[in-house]
């Protein structure tokens, strides 16, 4: 019997060395990407990102006035979240950080995010807080008006009504281009993978499960 145990242990040792640390399944800590920060949640309370410790977090950057990519990203995140079991969902937080805190008040953000999933978390803050979070994750955003990109014909999820043409012109300053990266963060707050809406859902959920089971 002992011989069998030793043989099996040896086989496991060999198998382990070939499979457990295969290059394609390893999710290294991405040094310098992310970190702790303060923000305002949808209830208007200040939170620390470290409060999410123990959970897997997926962070996306965007804004509610976004013409295309943000609703698409949140739709993708909705499908991603739905592909997790209920138990996995309780261990996974989907966080949407606005890059337009002036327009995206906590209440506004809550209503927008709620269209996709009530468990999703919208984070806002002062411009300074938001810029700090963006810099921590080395994301980027730019006002389209600064880039001289015409914005008047861009369709929106939340159409705005304008009293006059001047107001409409000023509004062009509220549209942005921004990073599309989705940051997968482990229970200790380390960024472990960078994804986007092109990542197959089953591939992304497998990574989430891998981090849950660590």
């Amino acid at each position: 019997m002992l011989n069998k145990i030793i043989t099996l242990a040896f086989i496991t040792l060999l198998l382990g060395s070939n499979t457990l640390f295969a290059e394609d399944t390893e999710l290294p800590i991405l040094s310098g990407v992310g970190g702790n920060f303060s923000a305002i949640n949808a209830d208007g309370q200040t939170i620390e990102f470290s409060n999410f410790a123990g959970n897997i977090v997926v962070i996306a950057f965007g804004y509610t006035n976004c013409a295309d990519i943000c609703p698409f990203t949140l739709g993708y995140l909705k499908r991603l979240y739905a592909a997790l079991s209920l138990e996995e969902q309780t261990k996974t937080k989907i966080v949407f950080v606005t890059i337009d805190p002036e327009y995206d008040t906590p209440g506004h953000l809550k209503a927008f995010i709620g269209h996709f999933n009530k468990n999703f978390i919208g984070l806002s803050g002062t411009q300074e807080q938001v810029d700090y979070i963006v810099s921590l994750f080395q994301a980027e955003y730019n006002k389209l008006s600064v880039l001289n990109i015409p914005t008047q014909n861009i369709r929106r999820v939340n159409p705005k009504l304008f009293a006059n043409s001047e107001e409409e012109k000023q509004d062009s300053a509220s549209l942005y281009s921004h990073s599309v990266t989705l940051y997968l963060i482990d229970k200790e707050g380390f960024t472990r993978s960078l994804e986007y809406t092109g990542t197959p859902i089953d591939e992304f959920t497998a990574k989430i499960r891998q981090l849950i089971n660590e």
Partner: protein
Amino acid sequence: MMKSILAIILLLAGAVASISTAYADVEQRVEYTTSLNSMASVVMNWYGSLITTNKDAIFVAVDNRWTDYRSHYPENISQIKITSSDLTKLEGSSQYQFKVASLISYSTAEGKQSQIINEIFVFDVSLLSLPVIKSLSLEKSEKVAAVESDKFTSSHYKAREFAYAWLAYLDGVELAPSLSSTSWIDTADYTLKIGHKKIQGSVRSIREQRKQYLTKGGHLLRSIDVEKKESKSTLLLTVIAEWKGVNQSGKPVLAKIRQEITVRVLEDKTWKVLAIDEQHLIPDIAPWIGLLC
């Protein structure tokens, strides 16, 4: 009862296998990168010191035992372009073979000339010590049509010799003579920014503190850019390196490292580093990284 023991032993065996494999991978990475960086630094010093025309950098003197070998190079070399290199470990030994092919441009009374030289350096390398050239052999030497360039000068090699030696030092290899000549290791300011953490101090102290994040692994040089500042005696080197390894908890870590190194070129053309600013960037793990919509 027996089944439980079996399950526990299998679990333990799996865990031991995982850890031992991860560490074996890391050990391999450490050996490869430290050897590569320290040997590459010696090779850069070798070629840089051959350039005598428009010499704008100073190099550590090459051991006298290679004087005869170096006589096969032409005189008045102005440029050396390394066209290919190949590093392999010689089986069953602590020796590495570095094959280098280069295109050497030089001047004679007849005008500009060029020559292809293929040669093999064999290094004796013991981990964390400076490598020693064990043997050299000339594989090919052939005159070709003259090639003009102003890129591969002595300063080109100086920057690379410095960068490789510096990365080797960060990985724990002893200080190369080129880094210790002006004692800047004891005086330069080193600022390290990783996410929300920012620490500042001497080179030795930051190198130690850095180990809690980048504990065991190695740097690979990805690019180096040299910019002359307004004061011609000051250079700004931008070094991009990749680090792979494990942190102090044994978790795998990947870092894309950007270092801005401010260097004062002294009157005798030796380099004195004034400051190092290091930041860890998003690694280039997918083509869409940095994409804005």
